[in-house]
């Protein structure tokens, strides 16, 4: 078997959590399409999560 990169599993699990959280926030908003407050909260949550992903600070995520 090849030698895997050290953080492969950790990164996989972290990103899986991130994706799950994003889908949760999107679902919350979409299922309350007529409630502006819920939609705004969902968008804010997505933005916060995505801003972190876009920074790409892997070391910080996995510590």
């Amino acid at each position, binding site marked *: 078997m090849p030698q895997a990169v050290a953080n492969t599993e950790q990164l996989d699990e972290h990103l899986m959590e991130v994706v799950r959280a994003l889908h949760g926030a999107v679902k919350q*908003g979409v299922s309350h399409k007529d409630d502006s407050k819920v939609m705004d909260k969902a968008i804010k949550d997505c933005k916060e999560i995505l801003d972190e992903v876009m920074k790409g600070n892997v070391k910080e995520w996995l510590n």
Partner: protein
Amino acid sequence: MFTDKIELKDFDKMDPEYKELLGHVLTIQADCEIGGPHLYVEKMLPAAPTKLDQLIIARTAAEEIDHFRKVARVAGDIGVDVSFVLSQPNDKRFVDTFRGLITTWEDNSVFGFLIDRVGRYQLEEFYDCSYLPLQRILPDIVTEELGHIEYGYNKTLEMIQSGDEGKAKAQKAVDYWYVRALDMFGRSGSKRSERYRYWGLKRRTNEQARQDYMNEVGPILTQIGLKVPDPNKGRRYM
């Protein structure tokens, strides 16, 4: 032509060229997956025309991040660390198309319509490929890419149907992204592409895949009332 199917446990026994090519293509694929969100999240998440569109942008980004995760896992398992692309500045992306920032809704729409479609073509290259762990992650990724393409197409169509101004904006965005889409297939006659095919990692030559793309997209553009841009104008790779 190499016709075997390779599992992770067989990887160490493979020819160095195979290992190098697989690592290279996975790195580029990972960069393209995460390169999309880096292009549109910053400006389009706050500026999409409706709250629902904002959430669809977030969902699209979530799916692309998940695609990155799956590709990074396949790469990481063979000892190729692609995590550096998560913090790679946009101007350092492997593929030119992902360098820059999307700042208008028409660019965002046409990006989904035309560039995510190239993404689908790139993924289709790995159908029935010789590396089985890569083959296994494809179906879900391609299904989600189809959703991105459809959304981009629908938003482009809405723009065209909104009137002359919308149609002009859509045409301008198509003129910009179409040539970039064609360039994404790489140089015709590429020796590297030939080696990918030899090792069963890709199915078509760059020029075959590009021609298939043009044959698919041309009629769609005409059908929705847009002009097909000159395929030779502004190209970087022929």
